[in-house]
């Protein structure tokens, strides 16, 4: 069908490509959440100091 020949391939705008690619969006959504909320949060919880020795000593000695 000649009258339905494709127009020469138009470059799909970059942003449009991102918007339409749901697998990419899935990846980005999961990654941003995993890094900022989970990873950062877990790192902070794992690196807390103990109660300072002098405070403990002032009570227990």
């Amino acid at each position, binding site marked *: 069908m000649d009258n339905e020949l494709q127009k020469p391939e138009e470059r799909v*705008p970059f942003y*449009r490509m991102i918007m339409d690619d749901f697998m990419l969006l899935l990846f980005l959504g999961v990654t941003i959440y995993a890094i900022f909320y989970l990873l950062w949060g877990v790192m902070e919880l794992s690196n*807390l*100091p*103990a*109660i*300072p020795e002098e*405070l*403990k000593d*002032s*009570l*227990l000695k």
Partner: protein
Amino acid sequence: MSLLSPAEGWYYKKVSKDEKMWMVIALVLCIMLFIWMVMWHVYGRQNPSSTTYKTSTAEFSKLSEAYIKQNMVGTDKGIPVVRPQPNSDVFILAEMWRWSPVLILQKDQAYKMHISSRDVLHGFSIQPVNMNFQVYPQYDYVLEFKPTEAGEYKVICNEFCGIGHHTMIGKMVVIEKEEDLKLYGYENFKKAPDLKSTKKPESLSETEMALQGEQVYALKGCAACHKTDGTSQLAPTWKGLYGKEEKVTENGKAVSIKVDDAYIKESIKNPQQKITVGFENTPMPVFPVSDEEIDQLIAYIKTLKN
């Protein structure tokens, strides 16, 4: 279109003036909200703290007990009362189902509160100022408070912690001048202990033993069941207990005993040996109490005459 694919050229359609205006306003608002939160950390007086220490329930319980022992000036409804020095470290323990100690604070002074739990999560909720923080076991949350108004405050628990959750309520009073203590019945309390002289004297007089015993009574939780006002709902009252003739069941047999030093010692170390008649449904658990503390308790019980 929401059901059918969007119209041709949708990607290039110009945004209408009003939608554009709204989006700009919304973006400005969003940025301002973020800046506001950050600025409040600089200029505002209320910010959640960023100071937390990792601890264990055993360690924090020990510290809390030591703190109360060191600083107790009296009791209120069986809970130790502490009057901390301004700018000092205060230890607040949450457990199923009470807050301790009760605090006497000075208006406009700062106190570093170390708050942790002996068991599950609790919710530290000061009313009526309505300040609410989360309390964890294994974590010491250090919040520096400065009360801005005098008065009586209660600490409710607003994180579900079991069937007794709604009975969990503590107290803090904020005073401006010494006379305010009268408002709460605290005027006869000892003066705040001098932090420098915490060495125990060689041997305590009977009165000092009794005072220590009162601390133990409050600290160890005896107060939860053994009241000193004569009521015996969950356990025999301690009022008039010493020297009393009591009916108990031992090895299935009913006997009559006299409440003396030996009986009290046995009842604490081995509560199931003799069960007071009438209290079979509320068995007493074993509490960790040292021999020295038992002697102090006995001295205290002796002072609770009819």
